[in-house]
């Protein structure tokens, strides 16, 4: 049984489970690094999953569908930005409301558009890729063959994001408005603009995560199909200490747990305790029992421009 669980197939499946989490988690990094808490990631994934399904179904073009999923996530993020940056509404309240809007909205539209309760018709996703040379290696090669192109794009986006956040002026500024907006403002950095950018990027990435879920993983949109993945992504972001590669590693850990869980379910073992792992680990990290996670200093605090 041990070999049935820990095989190359499990690793492949873990990578597939990691991908939607990783997109959303990276979105969380961008948003929270700029100082805006984003618990609406769950909703952003859900609208992404839904609009990817709509565009894939009606236009038969998966690339367009994935792009539009990102746009749909960005649109939800725009509401979050206006409400929590301009109007300074509590970011958690805004997030809770947006999650409700996403759940209600996608279910409403899904019933209207797909005419059937519960789910969309079968969706055609992207053509899978195999990485040349690596995919021919016996055993481990399985991991590199028949990959969704979106997985490879995910890895590239992570490398790019790390570079942008830590090696460019833009990244420095984005992080500075999340750490000390007053100081950043004094230096002439437009705090609102950078926070908008952070939140909108998180919406786009959250949407991509959702698109992977409906288009590449399940190949169907099911109502409320994210079932808490946005929150696992949030947990992974904290576990990864608000850094791109940290959250990617955490997402892989949680993705692996999910893959193992599905195998165990196959043999009829109770799997709810494996489901709890991401949440318990995150609480332990926050409590300082496993490493120490410190949020960006101004995370969650609306910025009030000083009036002179």
């Amino acid at each position, binding site marked *: 049984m041990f070999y049935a669980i820990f095989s190359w197939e499990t690793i492949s499946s873990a990578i597939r489970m990691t991908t939607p989490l990783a997109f959303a988690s990276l979105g969380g990094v961008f948003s929270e690094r700029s100082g805006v*808490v984003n*618990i609406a990631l769950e909703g952003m994934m859900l609208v992404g999953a839904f609009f990817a399904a709509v565009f894939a179904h009606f236009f038969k073009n998966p690339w367009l569908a994935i792009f539009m999923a990102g746009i749909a996530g960005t649109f939800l993020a725009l*509401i979050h930005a206006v*409400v929590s940056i301009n*109007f*300074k*509404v*509590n970011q*958690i*309240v*805004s997030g*809770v*409301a*947006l*999650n*409700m*809007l996403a*759940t*209600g*909205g996608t*279910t*409403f539209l899904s*019933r*209207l558009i797909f005419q059937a309760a519960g789910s969309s018709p079968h969706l055609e996703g992207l053509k899978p890729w195999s990485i040349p040379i690596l995919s021919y290696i016996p055993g481990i090669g399985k991991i590199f063959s028949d990959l969704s192109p979106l997985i490879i794009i995910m890895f590239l986006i992570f490398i790019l994001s790390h570079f942008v956040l830590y090696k460019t002026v833009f990244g420095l500024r984005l992080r500075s408005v999340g750490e000390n907006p007053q100081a950043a403002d004094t230096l002439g950095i437009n705090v609102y603009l950078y926070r908008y950018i952070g939140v909108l990027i998180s919406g786009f990435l959250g949407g991509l995560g959702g698109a992977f879920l409906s288009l590449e993983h399940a190949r169907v949109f099911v109502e409320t199909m994210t079932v*808490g993945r946005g*929150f*696992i992504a*949030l*947990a992974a972001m*904290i576990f990864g200490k608000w850094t791109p590669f940290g959250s990617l590693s955490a997402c892989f850990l949680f993705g692996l747990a999910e893959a193992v869980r599905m195998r165990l379910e196959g043999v009829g073992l*109770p799997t*709810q*305790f494996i*489901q*709890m792992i991401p*949440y*318990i680990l*995150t*609480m332990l990290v*926050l*409590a*300082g029992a496993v490493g120490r996670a410190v*949020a960006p200093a101004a995370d969650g605090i609306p910025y009030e421009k000083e009036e002179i």
Partner: protein
Amino acid sequence: MKDNSFIKELFWNVLSPTISIILALILGGIVIFFLGHNPFDVYVQVINFALGNPTGWGYVLFNATSLILAGLAVAVAFKGGLFNIGAEGQILVGGLLSAVVGLSLPNLPWFIHLPIVLLSAMIGGMLWALIPGLLKAKLGVHEVINTIMMNWIAYALTNYLVVNVVRETGVIYPLPQTAELPKSAVLPRLGFFFQSIGINIPDSNPVNASLFISFIMLILVYFLLWRTTLGYEIRAVGSNPSASENGGINLSKIIVITMLISGAIAGLASINDVLGYRHRFLDNFSHGTGFTGIAVALLGKNHPVGILFSSLLFGALDRMAIGMDVFTHIPREIISILQALIIITVAVGNEVFTRIFLRRRKL
């Protein structure tokens, strides 16, 4: 002068939600129009369905019962400066604990059995709120993330227990649930009561004695927060933690107590379904009540009177959603969309108002 500003504030507290609700209804009306229905006809039909007959009233009160308690739980924490998004998990754990305790006790007279079961619901909620409370008080970990995590742990844990440990045996019901509670551990339905005062709510209506418990809690929370020393300390910590610590209040003690009270009330929010309606614990029965509680508390300005009205509003909206299914082909989720829009516009309205208010004071 002071009275004047009080009236102004009261006026705004009523006006701003009213504007939000009207805006949301107009937006919903536009959607209904584009789906080929006459918005006025649809609204008249569904509002009449929810509010124009005793059966509808019963359902609205039934829906409002859980929301009052969930809203109070969130509001008490809010007043103490804590954001309890964990009401959902606290409801589930409270509900499961009350059902398990109710089933495992031997035959008892109802006046012993029922209080024990009610207390178990509160203890379940308290247990689940205690962990984030302690982490906040002792280690300074922000309660928002921890309460979210506790929600998902509660989903998984209660699911495990109801599937593998306390599932009803013999009957194959598709969703996991416990066996039915004995008569001495459940709350009576209120049809007979309303009939006796001339309101013809049928006996089958789910509105039950939890409604009275929720009313009692509204009054108790008011007294706790505004008429006791503990309540004063909770509000002091909520509005200025460092000042209240300098004033001699034990900060971490108050944080833990606030979370415990909040959790206890959230745990009680389970009784409407578990003890009053189904008479058993059904897997994931709460369906987001804890999150709607946040909306209810926000809309009710964290005040018991406000929470009563916002619970009735959300309860009526939920009933209207069923009406949508009955009278139209419009998916009922249009009502959830309206609810979300109401929350966003009210939250924005509150901020705009405080800003105008503050600017006036500065001048």
